[in-house]
């Protein structure tokens, strides 16, 4: 441990991040809009809101509803399309010196490939995250609910970019380790776990679903144990790094994800409440490492598995 405290650098795929705390796609906008509300120095990277080839206007409102323990959303990938993204948003991110990962989505494999090809030439893009929770046009289900398609799509993207490829998976499968292995076999450098769970709520007075699109993605504190379990299982199944998240609110939550096998953590819903939360969580992680005399955060990854063996 040097005088400046434990090292918070992490490597995920082909690049290094100055902090292991990453902002999850869709909850931090494009990273540029928050100005003084955010504390960028604590953030390893901002994963931008999923961008598609063509602009999308998003789902019918209402698009968000808070339940007793979590948050339902159905934004519907509202975004300006890749062209405007590259023209307007990328320069702003670079001007502000914000490290960023670009999340991409589409309804067919060729859309993902085309997006990856375009982004391969864009300077400043640290990694491409494949949002594999988009419904596939042909299959009528999410890409990452199907292992053959997952492998094929990741491999297709892999061929079109030299950037780090992160596959972000849905937790809505029978066995997430199968899908994780498929993404690894396709050539993913890293995995991001998890996207939201399906959920819905109804208004008991009117009988009407709370979300305009009837159901949506469930996130926030309620999903933490479920997400942690999936990160644990996937860590055992693959050898590529995992960005873990789902329901993180505090440094302790983040520590659990490292112990379960995460190499970095992602903050989603909590960003919408406390835009500076990455700073507090990073500080909390550092204090924890210092207390335990651990010189670098990377050492914490998967420690829980060692302990579990000893206990069991």
């Amino acid at each position: 441990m040097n005088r400046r405290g434990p090292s918070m650098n992490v490597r995920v795929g082909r690049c290094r991040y100055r902090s292991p705390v990453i902002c999850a796609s869709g909850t931090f906008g494009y990273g540029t809009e928050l100005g003084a509300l955010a504390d960028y120095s604590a953030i390893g990277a901002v994963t931008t809101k999923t961008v598609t080839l063509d602009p999308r206007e998003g789902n019918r409102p209402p698009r968000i509803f808070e339940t007793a323990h979590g948050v339902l959303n159905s934004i519907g990938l509202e975004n300006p399309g890749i062209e405007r993204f590259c023209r307007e948003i990328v320069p702003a991110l670079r001007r502000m010196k914000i490290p960023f990962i670009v999340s991409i989505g589409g309804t067919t494999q060729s859309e993902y490939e085309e997006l990856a090809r375009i982004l391969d030439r864009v300077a400043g893009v640290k990694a491409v995250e494949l949002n594999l929770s988009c419904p596939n046009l042909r299959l009528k289900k999410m890409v990452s609910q199907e292992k053959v398609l997952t492998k094929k799509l990741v491999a297709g993207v892999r061929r079109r970019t030299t950037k780090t490829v992160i596959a972000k998976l849905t937790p809505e499968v029978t066995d997430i380790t199968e899908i994780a292995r498929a993404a690894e076999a396709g050539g993913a450098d890293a995995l991001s776990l998890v996207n939201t769970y399906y959920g819905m709520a109804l208004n008991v007075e009117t009988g009407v679903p709370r979300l305009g699109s009837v159901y949506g993605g469930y996130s926030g504190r309620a999903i933490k144990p479920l997400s942690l379990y999936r990160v644990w299982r996937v860590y055992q199944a693959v050898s590529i790094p995992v960005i873990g998240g789902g329901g993180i609110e505090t440094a302790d939550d983040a520590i659990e994800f490292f112990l379960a096998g995460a190499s970095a953590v992602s903050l989603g819903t909590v960003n919408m409440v406390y835009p500076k939360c990455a700073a507090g969580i990073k500080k909390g992680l550092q204090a924890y490492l210092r207390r335990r005399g651990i010189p670098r955060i990377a050492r914490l990854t998967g420690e829980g598995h060692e302990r579990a063996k000893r206990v069991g």
Partner: protein
Amino acid sequence: MKERAVEIRRITQKRPDIFLLTVRSAALANQARPGQFLHVKTDECTTILRRPLSIHRREKQDLSLLVKVRGRGTRALLRRAPGERLNVIGPLGNGFTLSPFPDGGTTMLIAGGIGVAPLVFLAQRLTGTAKRPSTGRKIALIGARTRGEVLCAPEFRRRGFTVKKATEDGSAGRKGSVIELARDLLAARGDARPLRIFACGPEQMFFRLRAAINELCPEPERVRCQVSFEQFMGCGVGVCCACAIPTRQGYKKVCKDGPVFSLHELKERGTE
């Protein structure tokens, strides 16, 4: 816009389900404009997201919110105590546009229920602190279910507004909705002298108001009507795209493009 922990000065119960919460922050008070809101972290346990609440009133370094208890968040807020710190982000949103208005014109405020909240701050600004207080006729229409639920009438009177009430049960003012009251007034005007309307209340009220203007005003497109719109909100600062509403120019964000919109640009829900 900034995240701040501001001191709670007072919490005053106004009605069984309505309370006034006053916080102190000179910086916030100086920046705030009528129609803007604070995104409030009501508590740490029972809620996750923040709750948007309009700025109701300003007195020197203090800002007040007028809150109706609806669910977990507003209930938790009522249980907070003076002296505690309240985490808020704000002031947020565009606020009402106060462009120059001809002297002979009429200014009409229309409040449905708790919709009165932002209009009191607006009335303050239209009369009190403005460099050139607007002359002309000033009317405030207040709608509620019953007499006991009519809010803030004295606040408007004190600022030179003629107050007219409408209650659903007829226990005060006109029986019926505040829009029926507005219809009476619009029908009685019968001329095209300048009129501007500021409204806040349940969404359906706006579309009935638009129908009334189109039907009863000789030159409906010249009536300037700004409405403060509600929608379930996420971040409050324009990044999550959760609080979209349909407008004639596509979806807009209530938190960033609004909450104040021109009535003419809104689209009725279900027609998008």
